[in-house]
């Protein structure tokens, strides 16, 4: 097996493994001593770097692994995002859970519970029609109050808000 072919095989092995592959494993699969393997991989690492390839080989504890280049992060994010375009951030989920259990509730009340500003989560939930502005609370400033929508019920497979599972120890908390 010539060096080009060895490189080719190593490439396919690293590709399939996904995880890091140790020098020892490569050595036993290819039946080539570890120091030679290491020399060849170092050539490969240089080659990938010099050519500015989209994937690179990194070394971790004498094991080798393919990974992408940080420079391409932006594009990768654009590619993977569409799959989760419908996604809810952790922040939005927290906000939604508070609204679901505490409705009707004002923004200030939500923020008091979460301990952080929640404007963008609220906007996002409203945009996704999971919550809606159910009017204004009497009192100073007449703040907007929020409730969950029918769409929310549908998404979570609930017939009504009363079907939300009871909270454990809730009595202790309130």
């Amino acid at each position, binding site marked *: 097996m010539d060096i080009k072919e060895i490189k080719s095989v190593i490439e*396919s092995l690293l*590709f*399939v493994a*996904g995880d890091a592959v140790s020098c020892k494993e490569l050595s036993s699969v290819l039946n080539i001593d570890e120091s030679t393997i290491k020399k060849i991989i170092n050539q490969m690492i240089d080659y990938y770097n010099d050519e500015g390839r989209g994937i*690179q080989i*990194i070394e*971790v504890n004498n094991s080798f*692994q393919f*990974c*992408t*280049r*940080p420079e391409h*992060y932006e594009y*990768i*994010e654009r590619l*993977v*995002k569409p*799959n*989760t375009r*419908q*996604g*809810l*951030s*952790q*922040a939005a*989920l*927290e906000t*939604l*859970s*508070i609204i*679901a*259990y505490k409705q009707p509730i004002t923004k200030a009340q939500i923020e008091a*519970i*979460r*301990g952080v500003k929640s404007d963008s989560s609220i906007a996002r939930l409203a945009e*996704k029609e999971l919550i809606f502005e159910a009017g204004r609370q009497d009192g100073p400033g007449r703040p907007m109050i929020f409730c969950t929508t029918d769409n929310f019920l549908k*998404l*979570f*497979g*609930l017939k009504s808000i009363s079907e*939300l*599972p009871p*909270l*454990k*120890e*809730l009595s*202790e*908390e309130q």
Partner: protein
Amino acid sequence: MPINVKLQAFEGPLDLLLHLIEKAEVDIYDIPIAEITDQYLDYIHMMKQLDLEVASEFLLMAATLLEIKSKMLLPKPKKENNQEEEIDPREELIQKLIEYKKYKEFSTLLKEKLIVYEKVFYKLPEPIESYLTDYTSLSGVTVDMLTKCFQSILSKNSKEKRSNVREIYRDTFTIEDRIISITHLLAAKPAFYFDDLFEGRKSRHEIIVTFMAILELIKQKTIIIEQEKNFDRILIRRNISFSI
């Protein structure tokens, strides 16, 4: 018994017939029906003798062959209806055989391709969490998650209340300091849990500063954070593509 194996290898009556035709080296468009029918019946007979279950399709074909054979033995009708074209009683069977033969031949081609391409490996998608820090798929969201989420907020709040955070701390912690100490920690071990950073600490200020330091390190891509699912412990990992 070799004959047994051979008999079982036929995919159906058409397959068997094609085999007989090929063996006899005759033109598929001009099958010597008497001869082929006899051979076909011999096979069926052998199958029965060998106690093999003869599928109904084989028997049906035997009947069809016999019918064609007898039609061909009949004297040709006198040309009373001259306008009607004489139909070969074999015609329908021939068409079926030719149609079947095409796919049978293609299936051998498929098999050749399969032998090559089943040796090809694909890789799993990379975990997208490492590319997206704050995304949870809406499709995966359940009521249970919602409840747990709310519960954890409540319990977090109640713990905070119990700890009576009314003291005032001096601004002893800066984000820069914290980044340095986390970096030192990472130099010592490649990964640790997020909550490890807060062990034994009560100061809200320090928690915030630590958290901001973590955010900064993520932004710099010095570290990678991982969480299997919501509310799991968050793992902070050295970003291996960056040396510290």
